[in-house]
């Protein structure tokens, strides 16, 4: 055990590679099922999503092999340059990018479009790992978190400009890393409470949120009335909460795009419009729900195959799995993701080099957030936010980015 922690692995982690391949294969056969049209053109036509995905997969394997062959120690040195390069690319997108599905986040090169945001997640993970690993003591690392927030805020801001909500949210995944570094557990508690309060404010009216917070404040005030210090703290928290509610309400009303507001409203049940604004969510739930326990069988999924589900081979690909493979298939996919993420975390824990450890936490968080947001939205637990399911959704940029992320980790793990 100790030896393992000290030395790392002597070989490439076969488990991670197997998880990677399993997800990739599941992804491709699902893309094939949802986009295959027996009456249409031949298999090797580049117009077919499944054919293009095969090419992306092939190129990903080449990238993976190259990463495994190259020397690992350069990543630490290259962390900041890569991060900056990604930022540069994203700024470039603002000027020369093209818009796909409402997100101005793509650079078109010939027949293919790449999405720099996907790669930026990798750059971010590298840069943060490098940044935190430079700290000598735990206290020193903790003190760096404000700067780290700034490092994250830059790409998030650019991504917001590109109107790509989903990707921006993914950057919050570094909360895992922050937490691991030793940022107090209050980060998680405050974050969770804030999220709950935010939703409550949107769901009801501002006034009810004020009432709720005030009621809680009064209860605590009575409980702590003999402790002056606690009373002051209560008052501060109360004021912050009131400001937060006002801000949440204001940002919801003025900052969010109308379609984003709608998505949140639908999820909150404030709008019931299955044919119109709620169409995506409704169809997604129908597709998954109609799969039953064992599913309808491969390529028998009517909802995904007949285009009732929007984006059924990209963001909503989980619908195809849920429909054709049922609860069993959904369970397997969840298990594969959880297995992959936990394996990354476990390997991270045994690293001697903090850079590798922090990098592992970074990419585990990214993969988990993708998994969390994507599946959460398809099963109606989260608002519809356009974000791919890692390694499964159709798309070259995403596949390459995750391949790079994962294999750099495998390479770094191998010492």
């Amino acid at each position, binding site marked *: 055990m100790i030896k393992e922690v000290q030395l790392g692995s002597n070989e490439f982690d076969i488990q991670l590679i197997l998880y990677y391949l399993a997800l990739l294969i599941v992804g491709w056969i699902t893309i094939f099922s949802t986009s295959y049209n027996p009456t249409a053109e031949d298999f090797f036509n580049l117009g077919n999503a499944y054919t293009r995905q095969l090419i992306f997969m092939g190129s990903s394997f080449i990238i993976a092999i190259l990463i495994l062959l190259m020397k690992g120690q350069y990543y630490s040195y290259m962390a900041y340059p890569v991060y900056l390069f990604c930022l540069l690319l994203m700024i470039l997108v603002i000027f020369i990018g093209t818009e796909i599905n409402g997100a101005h986040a793509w650079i078109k090169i010939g027949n293919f479009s790449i999405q720099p945001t996907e790669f930026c997640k990798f750059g971010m993970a590298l840069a943060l790992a490098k940044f935190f690993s430079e700290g000598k003591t735990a206290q020193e690392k903790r003190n760096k978190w404000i700067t780290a927030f700034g490092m994250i805020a830059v790409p998030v801001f650019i991504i917001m400009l590109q109107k790509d909500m989903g990707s921006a949210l993914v950057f919050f995944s570094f909360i895992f890393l922050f937490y691991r570094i030793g940022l107090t557990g209050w980060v998680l508690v405050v974050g969770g409470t804030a999220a709950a309060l935010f939703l409550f404010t949107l769901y009801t009216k501002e006034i009810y949120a004020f009432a709720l917070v005030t009621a809680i404040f009064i209860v605590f005030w009575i409980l702590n009335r003999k402790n002056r210090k606690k009373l002051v703290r209560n008052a501060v928290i109360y004021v912050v909460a009131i400001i937060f509610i006002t801000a949440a309400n204001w940002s919801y009303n003025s900052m969010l795009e109308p379609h984003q507001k709608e998505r949140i409203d639908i999820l909150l049940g404030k709008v019931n419009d299955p044919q119109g604004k709620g169409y995506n969510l409704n169809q997604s739930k129908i597709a998954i729900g109609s799969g039953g326990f064992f599913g309808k069988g491969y390529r028998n999924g009517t909802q995904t195959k007949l285009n009732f589900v929007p984006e059924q081979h990209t963001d909503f690909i989980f619908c195809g799995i849920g429909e054709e493979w049922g609860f069993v298939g959904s369970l397997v996919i*969840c298990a594969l993701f959880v297995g992959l993420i936990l394996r990354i975390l476990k390997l991270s824990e045994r690293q001697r080099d903090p850079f590798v450890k922090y990098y592992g936490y970074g990419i585990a968080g990214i993969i988990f957030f993708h998994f969390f947001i994507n599946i959460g939205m398809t099963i109606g637990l989260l608002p519809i936010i356009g974000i791919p399911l890692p390694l499964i959704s159709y798309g070259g940029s995403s596949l390459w980015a995750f391949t790079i992320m994962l294999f750099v980790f495998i390479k770094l793990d191998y010492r």
Partner: protein
Amino acid sequence: MDKQYRIITFIILGITLVFLIQLFKLQVLNDTYKKKADENALREITEHPARGLVYDRNDSLLVYNDAAYDLMVVPNEIRDFDTADLCKKLDISKEELMNRIEKARYYSKMKPSIVAQQMSKANYGYLQEKLYKFPGFFVQNRTLRHYPKPIAAHILGYVGEVDQKILEEDQYYQMGDYIGISGIEKAYEQELRGTKGKRVVLVDVHNRVMGSYKNGEEDENSIQGLSLWSTIDMQLQEYGEKLMENKRGSIVAIEPATGEILCIVSTPTYDPNLLVGSARSKNYNALLQDTKRVPLFDRALQAMYPPGSTFKLANGLIALQEGIITPKTQYACGGGYNMGSHTVKCHAHPNFPDLIYGIATSCNTYFCRAYYNILSNRKKYKTIQEAYQAWKDYINTLGFGVKFDTDLPYETKGIIPSVEFFNKRYNNSWNGNSVVSMGIGQGEAAVTPIQMANFVAIIANRGYYFKPHVIRAIGNKDTPNDRYAEKIDCGFDKNHFDALIEGMEQAVLQGTARSVQIPGIKMLGKTGTAQNPHGKDHSVFVCIAPKEEPKIVVFCLVENGGFGATVAAPIASLITEFYLNREIKRNDLEKRIIEMSIL
């Protein structure tokens, strides 16, 4: 292992567990998504069977089917579409379209309803191709009735869309389905409609049909309705309608040995092709509003006329059966039947006719007296009421005042007044003379042409009949329609018919119907003049031919035609000649009749 590592692992597993619970709820615990998925992707297309064909007795087609295309809508599946484009294609206003969709929605949101019937081939092609532009709409193939000759409208009847009442009562029908509304289309609806089939197809989100579901495992082919072989002789029917042109009235010809109706004409009539498809309601209203000609009225089954002198045959028969007269019985005529207060006049003929001569000359006095004697037979019946009831029973047995339940819907039973009717009218104090005019077919009695024709068939058969009907075989030419196989005996002594037949022969040879003898055919006949309080009397004639082995009996009535011999007798005899000889030698008579106009 650090606390943070464990907490992060815990959070990941916790969230995944929440996902799995939600997935389990959606996929395993909840059925509604399966139903919704089927609603999304499966479309059940009803395959409408073609209705059965109808042949005449010589295997000529009376009714066949034409292809037609209807535009259907499933209201729940409608999304935004180019209303202007659709309205233009259907040639209706936007309000009208919205109206129809609203109507469909009222019927059912999930089941398809018709939006537009019988689109042109061009529109069909266009819409079939552009259907994805109109989510919720689809095109359905149908068949429409078509009639090669514009005849027999009342017999054949017509089909139309089912109404709300039938939709509620009978699960077989869906809104927009056709159902027989009159004639044999109604009477044989069960046989003609066939069995619906269905095709389950997959449609995509744009409402395009993407192929069959489960390789057509759940599809069912439609089965065409059974064909019917009619008893109608198409050529005879056509000829009858031609003779009756510009006249109001009816011809009913029956093959007495079987009760098969050879032709049944009611004029004025209409072209059955008018009541087909989308033009139906418009044309129907036009026909309905034609109050002068009343073409929709089926006189053969529904018009009630005073029976006229032909009724004398029935009363003669009853008098014989009751033993009131024998064929030799003579009554003094003397120009009328005197009841004291007034006299039923008779026309010039030798005094003291017997039954045969009475029939031949249509003597009023003879039959008034015979009828009076039936009702005054106090040896047998204690009261007038009893006697009248006995007579009424006879008359009902002969098919008057009752319905036959033939296979033509909407027949009327006519009027043979009840004892109570006269008791009330005469305050219980009445005698044979009170009702004596019924003895000669006037007065309160009213009969329909088909009843008269059937009565003549009873005479031809000497005492029995088969219910008159128009369908002889169902499904297969050799599968007889067993609904009308029962031989109905009227209970009269067979010998009594000899005198009637003799009388009818004499009527043609030297009596009232001399002018309509058919060369080479021994025809029996009886003229009648049905008194009409509203205008000129109705001309009536019945005949049987040939005498030796009757093949056809004909009843003809021409409203306001005057004496029986003027119009009805020539028409009936021409019908007989045509049916038996297949050609007309008396062209002058034919020409005169066809050109005659009594409207």
